[in-house]
């Protein structure tokens, strides 16, 4: 459990969008995947995940569909929309710039 970091909101949106890039996922899978890929460093509280998903859906960046999960249960799957993909590119680029800039400052100091 140690070493986990809570995410600021903008970053959470970016991560969700990125996680959905390979294909539709349901909420639980998203949170599992984030945890896995980030080597257990990042965890998304369910209390923040679902509101974020609903918010992204309202903005039209992701779309929800009911489908059947791998264990044969009804689950709500989210997938990127076209604007969502665009948004992901924009945000990824913004994030890269930000992180490079922050790195430079941290090292320069």
């Amino acid at each position, binding site marked *: 459990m140690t070493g986990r970091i809570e995410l600021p909101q903008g970053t959470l949106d970016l991560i969700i969008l990125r996680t959905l890039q390979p294909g539709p996922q*349901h*909420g*639980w899978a998203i*949170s*599992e995947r984030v945890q896995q890929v980030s080597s257990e460093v990042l965890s998304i*509280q*369910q*209390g*923040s995940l*679902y*509101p*974020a*998903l*609903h*918010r992204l*859906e*309202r*903005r*039209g960046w992701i779309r929800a569909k*009911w489908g059947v*999960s791998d*264990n044969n*249960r*009804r*689950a*709500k799957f989210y997938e990127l929309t076209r604007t969502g993909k665009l948004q992901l590119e924009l945000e990824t680029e913004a994030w890269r710039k930000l992180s490079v800039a922050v790195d430079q400052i941290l090292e320069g100091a």
Partner: protein
Amino acid sequence: MLNDLRYRLRALFRHKAVEQELEDELHFHFDREVEKNMNRGMNKEEAARRARLAFGAHEQAKEDCREARGTNIVELTLDDTKYAVRQLWANPTFALVIILTLALSIGANSAIFSVINGVLLKRLPYAQPERIMRIFLSSPDFPKFPLNPFDFLDYRARNHSFQSMAAFVRNDMQLSGVGEPMHLNAFATTSGYFRVLGIQPQLGREFDFKAEIPGNELQVILSDRLWRTQFSADPNIIGRKITLNAQPFTVVAVMPPGTEHPGNNYHSVAYGESVDLWSPFAFTGNSNQRGSHFMEGIGRLKPGVSEDQARAEMNTIMAQLGREHPGNDTGWSVLVVPLYSEVVGASRGMLMVLLGAVGMVLLIACANTANLLLARASARQREIAVRLAMGAPRLRIIRQLLTESLLISLIGGALGLLLALGGVRALVALLPANFPRAHDIHINWPVLGFTLLISILTGILFGLAPAVQASRTDPKQGLQGSRTTTASRHQNRLRSALVISEVSLACVLLVGAGLMLRTFLNLVHLDPGFHQENLLTASLSLPHARYNTDEQIAQFYSKLEASLNALPGVVSAGAGSDVPWTGYDENAGFNIEGKKPAPHQEFHARYHQATPGYFTAMGIPLHEGRFFTEADKHDARNAIIINRAMASRYWPNEDVIGKRITFEDQPKKDSDWMYIVGIVGDVKDQPNSTGAEPAFWWPQNQVPQSDMSIAIRTRSDARQVEDGLRDAVHRLDPQLAIADIKLINQVADASISTPRFTFVMVGLFAGLAIVLAGIGAYGVIAYTVSQRMHEFGLRVALGAQRDDLLRMVLAQAARLAVPGTILGLVLALALGRVVQSLLYGVSPADPLILISVAVLVLAVALLASYVPARRAAVADPMMTLRSE
């Protein structure tokens, strides 16, 4: 954007489905988490526990999701409203009591507000009404006096403050030649009268300055109503001649509908569309004689000129006139009063008092409702604790409870508005007859807005404290399932404070009602100085065209008096220049033989005319000397009768009969003198005037006056001589109109209608207040009794007597009622100054009223707690012991 809207609409209209999906989604997540934990080798319980921990507060998450949907406010409100309706439905008696009390109080507020809106807030129906000023003279003896016509001409010529200025005077006319002769309300006006008011005629044009020249006065402007009813809206009426006072007048203009009379002080005509026609005022006579004052001034300020500037300039002009016409024009200052204050000034104080009173009723109703809600909130503690434990945020609980209060207050407001709709009609009917702008009182948009506003405000006011209180519920304590949910000490204090303030406000209102009642009774029981019973009065006006000599006028009234006295059932009949309490205010200055007045304190008195039968008909008693007789004729010695007030002001402790007064500065002949032949009792100007003004009467036969009031005293119902009066008049002159036929009771009634109205209103509010305060006291006592039943049972088991319990509960009630009463009485004393001007013959600190109110309030409070106290007294010890 479009997506956003679609999303929100779906969330709104497919609310149930969306909620279900959310629940399913979260549930799915939870299950997978449990599954995962079990796969790691936990047992089922542990897995579920860990999942729950990871998940966080379920309700909170849902709440955040709803928030994210962006339709939260609407959805929540809908939700809360549905919930609130269910809550109210579950406890209909509670809801009904609260809604009804609120409806009554909000309705009363709306009704009073509609009066205030129509009378005080609505603009006067003229262009830029704030620039219209009334102009009066003022001196120490006559604080508000009419203008002299020649002074007026100088004001008009010399001032630079007014864009236009006009003067007007009541000058009723008789219309004949179109059906029955008709008496019409009319004014003689100078040119520019309608320019001042800012109203254009719909046909023709208003009088020009030439109309003020004697000989040009046979012109007339008609009101829209007269034009429609008597002249069938003839579009070609301009230039047509009509017969007024038996003379041909040329119609020069027709005013548009909505031409409202701005009011006048002398022989006043009500505000509103009350005037039928206007004729030019012609300036006749010697412009250096400026002693007679009878014109009312009105003017429109130039843009940018202030009231004070205008007043200063007018006073400078008056000072100049004082130097040019020493004597007549000295000693006066000029009053410039905004028309608005003039119209509503007198009613403003009363309306503000009523607004204050009705506002207090609303506050009491709020306190009452808050109290009942607090009681119920403690009963709902469990429910709230559960919701808090499930993770509902505190704000959400407050919101929900506030939604409930708002729902209650809005239903109350809607019902209140219905009550106000009926109430306003009753209110207007109750209003004093001379009340300004009564025709402007309606339930309209501003009143609707006001009702909505106070409904929302009251909802928040009474709902906030209970809601915040309830949200403070400690979920742990609330859930522990104690036997009875006990209110916190803090809450009990709040509730007691609410009851105490209710009681004190009710006290204030009751004291107010008591004062108004005393005022009203004092006025009713006032000795008016004449007999009101079986007395019919009417007005006659002899047109100058046919009665142009004093002799003709004197003869007419002598003959009329004789034939009226011969009517069956008549005790006595006569005629006078006026009847009491009608605002008659004609004054004259004079010299007294052998006396010198102090500078600027000239001898003056009201003057009247009377026929021989007048005093007997009015029932005004003779104190000394004699009444007039037919012998007081044109060629006999000049006689006058004076009232007691005049005798004691100018001849204190002297023998007055035979004393002489004169209007001449250097009296030469005997006919310059008037001899006092009698002293009669005082009749006050208004029933509530502090004292009678000095007054004297001329015999109608010596100083004939063409406009007279007829007084007929009968043995029984005076209405029965109405036809006799008509016949008698028409036998003498078939073309005469008889106006204002009424019983003097009606005049008397009208003069006390303002205090009666105030009393009825404040009384109603006070009654409502005391009932509400009673409900409040009952609520609190009944609640604490139900909480303490257990303790009472224990006490009985330990040997307490029933009477002890009864006393204990009543003592608790007294602890609320006594401080409330004391506070209320102190508050009432402090507010006494505010109502002072509405009172007559009673001090705001009247001990009888204060004591009666205290006794009444304490009695009501104890009575309200007696029922719950009885319940306490029959506490069953067995019940207590069994439950332990």
